[in-house]
Each structure stands twice: as C-alpha cells, then as structure tokens.
C-alpha cells in the first residue's frame, strides 16, 4: 500500500497551523470543484484533496498520521505497525462513513472503521446509490448491462475496504435520463441488517448528434440553401430507424421542426426537434463560382437589410 503525503496534496508545510490547512483546502476545493473546474482530472483531485483534509483538519487524525508517517516518502510502501491502533478511537467529523469509504486504501487502513455513523441514521447506509451510463440507443431497444459496483465492506476488525460486485441489469425500453432503477435487495448490507435496495441513476453517454431532453430528442439538421428555399424531404438516421423529414419551402435558419412521437419510446412517446442550419457550399470550382456569380447578379439579396432598422 502506498504512503500518501497529505501535506503535499494540500501544498502545506508539515507544521502548518490549522488555519493555513483550512485556507489551502478551500483554495483547492475551488480549483477542483467538479462543476466548474477546467482541470481534466478535477474529480479525482477533489477526492484526494477531501481525503487529505479529512485527516489534517482533525487534530486526532492528524496526530496519528504524523506519528505513523514519520520517515515515509509519498508512494513508498507503507505498513502500519501491528495493532498500532488498539487503543485509538477516531470520532467522525464532516465526512460520512459512506464518503470515507470512497477514500484510498491507505486512508481506510488507518482510519476506516465501521463505527462513526451520525446518530439517527440507523440502517441508512443499507441502501446504495450509483450512476449507470447508457447509450442513447439503449432507450430505444432496451438492453442488458453489467454494472460493476464498489461498495464498502466492513471486516471483523471493523476496517472498511472496497469490494467490487458485478450485477446484470435489464434496461427497459423507454428509459430516460434522471430516472432511477431500483434493484430490490441489491444494496449494501448494513451491519446485521438485511441488504437494502440499490438505486441506479440513469445517465446517457454524450451522443455526437442527438441530445436527449426528457423523452424528447434535439438535433441540428444541416440543409443546403436550395433545400431550405425550395423545400425537400431529408432522410435522418435515428436510433428508432430512418425518419423522412419534410423541410417546408422557405425554411429559415434556426427554425425548429417538431416530429411528434419519434423520440424516446414511452407512453406517450417523446418528440424529435430539428433545428434547421443552412450550410452553403464552398465556391471551390470555376462552375461553383459561376453559379454564385449568377445568383449575385440576378437577385437583389441583401443579408444586412435589417441593419439600421433595429432600435
């Protein structure tokens, strides 16, 4: 097991006062906040920062860590002396047992124990929550997926480790983002209690063209200027099959077309929204240039005629 240098993670000196540790943590929590961070590995870094702070912000844990960590370098193989914690009790503050279970093996080897759940939460961790990432196509066809879950497991000594389980899950046709699949009796087993339910939150992997919004699908439909001007029927590949979309003559860019009932299957099924985007051909041949030239000479088209009329 690798030794983790929590001081290095937070970028503080080993004798840093509590106030400096809090300040460093807040700076990094802002930098790696997964909702706003531009860093590629924000989520992973945030977890490391949380773990380091869970130890260094707590005087008992920090003292124990300092004592155990004497002489260790980051990444070096770490072995705690046998029974070093025989008489130590750590009170849980801030981070819940379930969150702490997501911390590294290094953390749980030293501090991870089954106790410390806040009062009034009897059995609360017997449920379990995870996200499942599906392809949009799965919503049209239904699917079967294997889900690997890491769940905290408490051993006889009261230490928490992560156990990986694999489950087969049937994804019904018509599933939507944000829905929850409940697997009865597949949750984490609380100490002595019967296992709770496993709640799987559904999310879709990003699709190149199609953007689900509830039951509906949105997509941008590129059309040629003459298709928009004269009208056309354009075949569009969707997970449910090919849809022939009628572009009305005189369609303006940005206009939205709705095809009812062709979104995610359901009762009622969702709709598909097409936003028309006009793509002009490049004048990349003498003939194409001639055609543009003819258009220029034979129409009095002014794309900027509305300028000056605006308030």
């Amino acid at each position, binding site marked *: 097991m690798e030794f983790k240098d929590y001081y290095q993670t937070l970028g503080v000196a080993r004798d840093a006062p509590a106030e400096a540790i809090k300040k460093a943590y807040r700076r990094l*929590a802002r930098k790696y906040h997964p909702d706003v961070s531009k860093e590629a590995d924000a989520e992973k870094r945030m977890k490391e920062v949380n773990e380091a702070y869970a130890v260094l912000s707590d005087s008992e844990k920090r003292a124990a860590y300092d004592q155990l960590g004497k002489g260790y370098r980051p990444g070096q193989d770490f072995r705690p002396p046998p029974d070093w914690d025989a008489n130590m009790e750590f009170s849980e503050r801030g981070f819940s047992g379930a969150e702490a279970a997501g911390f590294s093996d290094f953390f749980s080897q030293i501090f991870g124990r089954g106790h410390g759940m806040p009062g009034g939460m009897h059995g609360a961790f017997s449920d379990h929550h995870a996200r499942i990432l599906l392809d949009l196509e799965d919503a049209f066809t239904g699917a079967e997926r294997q889900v690997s879950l890491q769940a905290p497991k408490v051993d006889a000594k009261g230490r928490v480790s992560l156990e990986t389980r694999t489950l087969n899950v049937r994804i019904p046709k018509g599933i939507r983002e944000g829905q929850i699949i409940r697997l009865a009796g597949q949750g984490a087993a609380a100490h002595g209690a019967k296992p709770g339910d496993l709640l799987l939150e559904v999310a879709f992997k990003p699709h190149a*063209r199609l953007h689900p919004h509830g039951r509906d699908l949105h997509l941008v439909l590129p059309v040629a200027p003459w298709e928009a001007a004269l009208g056309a029927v354009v075949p569009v590949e969707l997970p449910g099959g090919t849809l022939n979309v009628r572009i009305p003559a005189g369609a303006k860019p940005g206009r939205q077309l709705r095809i009812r009932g062709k979104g995610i299957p359901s009762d009622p099924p969702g709709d598909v929204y097409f936003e028309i985007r006009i793509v002009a051909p490049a004048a990349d041949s003498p003939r194409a240039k001639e055609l543009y030239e003819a258009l220029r000479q034979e129409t009095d088209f002014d794309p900027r005629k509305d300028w000056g009329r605006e308030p």
Partner: protein
Amino acid sequence: MSDEEILADACLTLEQLCAAASLERDWLIRHVEEGLIPVAGGAIAEWRFTTVHLARARRMREIERAYDAAPELAALVADMLEELDELRARLRRARG
C-alpha cells in the same frame, strides 16, 4: 438477473435520498423546512425527491462543509450551478 423496477420521476423518500447521497436526516429536514431544497408540501413521510434534488443536496452539503458556508449561501450557489447545468445542456443541443 435481479428484480428491477423503474421508479417514477419524483420517487425517492426522505430515507432513500439520505441513503443515496450520504446525508444526515436532520440536515435534510432542516433544509427542506427552510425552503432551501424545494419539495412539494405535506408531511415529511409524503415528501418525494428526484435525482435533481439528489444533486442539489449533495452540492449544498459540500459547499457548506468546504467553506463553512451558511445554508442560504450554499443554496444560492446551488441555484447558480443548476442554471449553469441548464445552460450547458441548451448549448450542447444548439451546437448539434
């Protein structure tokens, strides 16, 4: 193969949300009663939550903890992050 069930859109009970997001029951009740996590009225046993509530509750708790933030401030940040999510989703749809 296990027994699975798709829960309706607003479906999680207080206990299920607490378990799913590792929240303390008292914390969640306090925040709902103060209007910081909007839930349709009624008795506690009738409250039902969605995955949007789940994300919101997690964010607020993280902000409160990381910055010792007042719950109202955490709720304001959560409001803005939700708006950001919505705008990002719209931008993805518009970009095609």
